[in-house]
């Protein structure tokens, strides 16, 4: 019995991308974090990130967030454009551009006014731009480029922890992460099942460290994707597992970043645009080289 991931063509990739973006928008609506729900925030955070310095220099965040009417128009437009791109499979460049810019502005605005530069929103800020490219060959290069960007996110985190800061080899780290991220929850919910689970893991630091080590090594496994696409069917599941464990133990919600997981799905052969194509381009070379 064999299994395989779904094979996408350009239209399929667009529908999945903008469909995922729609769900992100719904999630943000339910968690009161769309621009019109921010209630005209007053403080913002640029940190030492020049992207945000430039963004605030333009005055756009204030324009969007300070005025209720403008905020409503922005959020409504983002919803309509996302749905339009989903229904038209990203075929209209003007809509794709507006949608992509909208998501970029939303991501920068939310990250500024929430005082936390979340990586999770970066996926939807970047991926829609891939559909600005019309020609099939160029689109595939762009899609492949976003795939490398996604692999880089994990690879860079692994390199940072293993080679630059050596935090991978700091034995208390597993228990420390759970302890500091869950301390408030544990104190406020002493009878919760999760509190019991966290307490057990914290009091067994070797178990916590092995869990931490496993997660970081899984991040490191994504480096394989730079050399071959043949393992994408396995690499596809690593971010899902990684973010699920993070939700359970580290109190961070990164599922929105899984929109970039779509780039690990195989694309159908170049000449066949129909969904009936059942062969993939796994044999073609990848970033460094495909053996």
């Amino acid at each position, binding site marked *: 019995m064999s299994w395989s991931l779904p094979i996408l063509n350009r239209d399929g990739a667009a529908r999945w991308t903008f469909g995922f973006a729609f769900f992100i928008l719904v999630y943000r609506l339910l968690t009161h974090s769309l621009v019109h729900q921010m209630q005209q925030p007053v403080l913002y955070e640029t940190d030492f990130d020049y992207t945000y310095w430039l963004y605030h220099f333009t005055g756009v965040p204030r324009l969007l967030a300070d005025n209720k009417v403008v905020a409503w128009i922005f959020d409504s437009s983002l919803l309509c454009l996302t749905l339009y791109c989903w229904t038209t499979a990203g075929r209209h460049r003007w809509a794709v551009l507006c949608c992509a810019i909208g998501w970029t502005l939303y991501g*920068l605005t939310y990250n500024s006014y929430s005082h936390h530069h979340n990586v999770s929103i970066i996926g939807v800020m970047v991926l829609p731009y891939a559909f600005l490219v019309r020609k099939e060959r160029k689109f595939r290069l762009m899609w492949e480029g976003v795939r490398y960007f996604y692999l880089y996110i994990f690879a860079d985190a692994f390199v940072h922890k293993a080679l630059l800061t050596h935090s991978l080899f700091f034995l208390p780290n597993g228990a420390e992460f759970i302890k500091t991220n869950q301390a408030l929850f544990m104190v406020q919910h002493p009878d919760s099942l999760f509190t019991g689970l966290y307490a057990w893991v914290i009091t067994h630091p070797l178990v916590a460290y092995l869990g931490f080590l496993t997660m970081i090594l899984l991040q490191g496994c994504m480096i394989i994707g730079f050399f071959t696409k043949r393992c994408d069917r396995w690499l596809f599941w690593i971010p899902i597992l990684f973010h699920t464990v993070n939700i359970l133990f580290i109190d961070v919600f990164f599922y929105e970043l899984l929109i970039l997981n779509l780039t690990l799905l195989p694309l159908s052969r170049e000449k066949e645009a129909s969904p009936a194509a059942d062969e993939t381009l796994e044999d073609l070379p990848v970033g460094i080289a*495909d053996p």
Partner: protein
Amino acid sequence: MSSLRSYIQRLYLVRCWQEYKLLFFLAIIFIGAVLYGHKSSCEITPALVPGMYAGMEQRTEDDFLVITADNALLDLHHTVDEPRRMMIYSTLSAFYQGVAAGEDPKAPAIRELVRKHPFMKPLSMHAVNAGEDYGRYLPWLLQYIRHSVDKDIRRLGVYQLHVHYDKQNLPVADYRKILYELESPHTK
């Protein structure tokens, strides 16, 4: 030799150069931003956001900011409610640090940066919060929480909860200190 040539031809950047030069230059700019970010330890969205990376620290105690709404603990959904919790607790933490410092905590470092690189001055003017904005924060917090939990909250309390970690490394609450109280429409 031909296999080496074939190998090089298959490299992604080489294919970009041959077929899509704009993407090639974007990739080069991105790689440059990554290298610069690592060298300078500066974030450059989306090239590098190292603030999420693991550190090496063993804490023996912690302080958390806790909010009560009409004398009941403001208890949002664990983890899945992250965007809303960030809007409340992350901003509150930044406010608290700003009030303690008397200005945006980044301001001294930015002034030093501008002193060394005067060309950064126009860009840096919008990198920090103005002092008067801190005075408007707490009323905004009350309004945001009211709308986000859909309750007509009359009284908001902000406390500092001190926690220490016992011999088993488990958190134990020590004390709770009142920091701010807001009563609509006044703030104390």
